[in-house]
Structures are given as C-alpha cells and as structure tokens.
C-alpha cells in the first residue's frame, strides 16, 4: 500500500528532468514572462539594424554612382 502511494505521488507530481542544476520554479516562470518583452525588444533591434544596413548600403551605392568616371 505504501509503495502504491509513493508510485501515485511520483506519477502525479512528475516534473521536468533538468540537468544537475535546479533552475528554480520562480526563476523559470519569470524568464517566460520577461522573455516575451525581451523577444519583442530583440526583434525590434534586428529590424532596426536591417533598416540601418539598408540605408547605409543605399547611400554607399549612391556615393559610388556619383563618382566621376
């Protein structure tokens, strides 16, 4: 009976298998929460970088086009 109870408890409360480091549940949840904001921020940063690259490459091309032959 005791063994059955332990088995049920083990199955009910089964959790993720982490490496040898306990990430901490609060910390885990916190990352998911701020991850949304961080992800949006990072996407905007990438988008901004692309705009800058586009503008600078265009202006460089224009400069080289304007060069006298």
């Amino acid at each position, binding site marked *: 009976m005791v063994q059955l109870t332990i088995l049920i408890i083990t199955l009910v*409360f089964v*959790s*993720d298998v*982490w*490496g*040898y*480091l306990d*990430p*901490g*549940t*609060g*910390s*885990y*949840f*916190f*990352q*998911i*929460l*701020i*991850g*949304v*904001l*961080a*992800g*949006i*921020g*990072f*996407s905007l*940063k*990438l988008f901004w970088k692309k705009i800058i690259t586009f503008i600078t490459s265009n202006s460089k091309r224009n400069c080289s086009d304007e060069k006298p032959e």
Partner: protein
Amino acid sequence: MKNRNNIRLPSSFRDPSGYVFMTDSVIFREIHESYIPIFNHLQSTGIYSKLFDLKLLCPHEIVEASDKTITIQPEKIPFISYPYEWCFSQLRDAAKCTLEIQKLLLCNEMCLKDASAYNIQFVNGKPLFIDSLSFERFIPGQPWAAYHQFCRHFIAPLALMSYTHVNLHKLLIGFIDGIPLDLAVSILPLRAFLRPSLFLHLYLHSKFSLRYWGSKTMQSSKNISRNASFGLLDSICSAVDACRLRPAKSLWSSYYSSGTHSDAYLLSKEKIVSDFVTYADVDTVWDLGTNTGRFAKLCAELGLNTVAFDSDFLCVENLYKDLTLSGKPNILPLVGDVANPSPSLGFNNQERDSLTQRGPTGLVLALALIHHIAIGNNVPLNMISSYLARLGKWLILEFVPKDDPQVKEMLSIRKDIFTEYSRECFIESFQKDFMIHKEADAGNSGRTIFLMEKR
C-alpha cells in the same frame, strides 16, 4: 586512464557528465558515456575549436577514447583562484566571458547548462572558461536553466560592489552558490533599481522567485521563443554593464604615491629583490601585500609566474586595470589577507581549497608586511614564521624595526605590548623554520631584507 595513481578531485562531484582527476600532478577530465554524443557534436561542429580560437574556453586534448568513456587533458591552469578573491573588474570580465560563450552557443543551437563563477579562471591576464562539459543542446521553448545561477554568481555581487560597498564580494565566501537574490535586494539602495536591467534581473526576479518557489502550476505553460532567448541575454548583458565601480580611495591605494618612501629606498629594494630572486632560482612567486604591484612586476619581468595578493580591494582593482592595459600576462592580482587567508569551503570543506592547500609556491615575497601582521594583528613572530614556511620554499622578507616611522605611527595610539618585536627575536623565531642565506639593508631606511630557505 586506468591507473592506480588516479586521484579524483574532491570538488568534482556535481556534474553527472564526468569528473576531474589528477595523475602525477597532471589534471585530466573523464567524460561519461551519457555525455559522449554531446561531446562529439561539439567536436564535429567546430564549436570547441571556435571557443578555443576566441580564447574563451581552456583548450583540451583527447588522450583516450572508447565507446564508454573519453579522457581529455585540459591545458594547465597556473593558479586556481576563486570569485571571492577577485576584484570588481575581474568578476565583471568573468561575467562577460560567460555571456559571450552563451551567445556563441545559442547561435549554434547549444547553451550553457550552468553559469557558475567557479567555471572561470584567469590565465594570461584574461578570464577563461574551464569546464568543457558545461554545454548542452538548446531545447527550443525552454528557458535558460542557469539564469538564476548567473544572477546569484555575477549580477548580485557586482551590483552590491557597485552600489553598496566594494568589499561585499566577500559574501561569496558565505554563499558558495552565489548571493541569494532576496539578500542582495535587501542590502542594495533604491537607486540601484533605477537601472531597468537591475530592477528586472534582481528585484523582480527575486520577488518572483519567492512568490512562485516550488510552484508546479507554471511549468505547463513553458514556452520561450528563440528571439526571446537572445533578447534575455542582451538584457542580462545590460545588467552587467549597469554595474560600475565608483571612483574611490582607500587607505593603501595611494601608499607608494603618497611620497612616504624615497626613490633611493625603492631603487635599492628593487636591486636587492632582483638579486635574491635570481639567487633563489624559482618559477613561481606569491607576493603578499603587493600594493601597487611594483615588486610583483619585477618578478614577472624576471620570468616568474606571479600571484600578487593584497587585502586592499582597490589596490587589486588598480593593479588588474594596470596589467590589462600594459599586457603583462604572468601576474595574477588577487584580494587576500595574510591575517585571514581564504579558507577551504564547500561540501566536506573540500570543494574550494584554502590558500595553503593551493601551495606551496617557489618563493614568498613579504615586503614591508611583517609589522602589519605582528603589530597590526597581534600575531606572534614564531607563528608568522611557521605559516610562511607552509606557503613557499623560499622567502624574501623585509624586516621593519620598531624605530621605523611606520611602526612608530602604528604604536602612537596604542600601548606597546610587543616586547618581542625586535630584529634579534625575529631572527631567532624565523631560524627555526628557515635558513638565512642573505641579508641586505634597504637603502638608509633601517629596514633589512632577508633571503631565507625553508628547512
């Protein structure tokens, strides 16, 4: 590597992927069968080579391989140091090294499975990650398991040193797995949390950790995008950058520049130390009470691998910055107090070695130090002698007599109970543990420098 002389290091027991052992003073790392697929992946994709080339990871060579185990031999680390012995800039550089590795790994669909500050050692003046098995595959959607550990080991002590007091890194001695975030938050001033990254990674992180500690309800909703992982890493980098050391002055940081010592005295001392070091013919030196590192640099120029200790945090900070700029690779500056040296710590007191356990070194340099230990800390001369004899084979010691202005100043506001503090008693005490080879007067200062060899 089945050898009778294999000694498993007592500090290597947490990671199930492998362990570190020593054979004839050479360090090896055995990799268990479970980690071999990841190890092979890191080898075949060139991630290890990339990390070696960028001088972020300690290089290793495979010395033995089978289906069940692989044995690697990492490059030798000249001196093992611990985060509670580092100055602010060393801890910050170690944090940046860890984050740089994590970023590179994420780009290659891998990640760090732990972010312990003890995985970093200083070699050739730069931080180097030493645990070749700290890597695992990045599972899309899963948060970084080592995030909490990184905040405890790096962000919390850096913020405390930056915003509260520079000596608070010593809390790392009491908390071997990093400073608890709630403790850091309770000590930090409110202005620290005006920095959004510190508010996020320390304050909010701490509150969430306490609120949801042990909760199972959130685990079903796990999902974090790849961009979120990179964004989070960027934000952690900002938190590290938000910690800066405020300009400060300490008792010892301007010791040599204050003009207390004449140039003639310092030049004479340099000549004597240089002659004595050449005579001792050793490879390693520990400079105790290094101050500006003047004599540690002299030893390094003579080709000795030098560890320079000072109990004054700012002296170590200034020396580390100076060495980073001048590029002297064979000096490691560390915070250390002879009157209270680093203890052995961790499980069974065997995870982190005490200073004595990391010795003995070839030569101990104790210049203008003995009066601080004997008079400043009331340590009897015979006890100082026996302790220094445990630290190294050779000793260069400068004896500062009682009529020296420095000693007079120390005794000016207290009763002179140091009847045994004399040149004669000093020689008598030290001759029990050492053989005196040479002695020379340091200019006209009245101080004498001795070269001694352990009996």
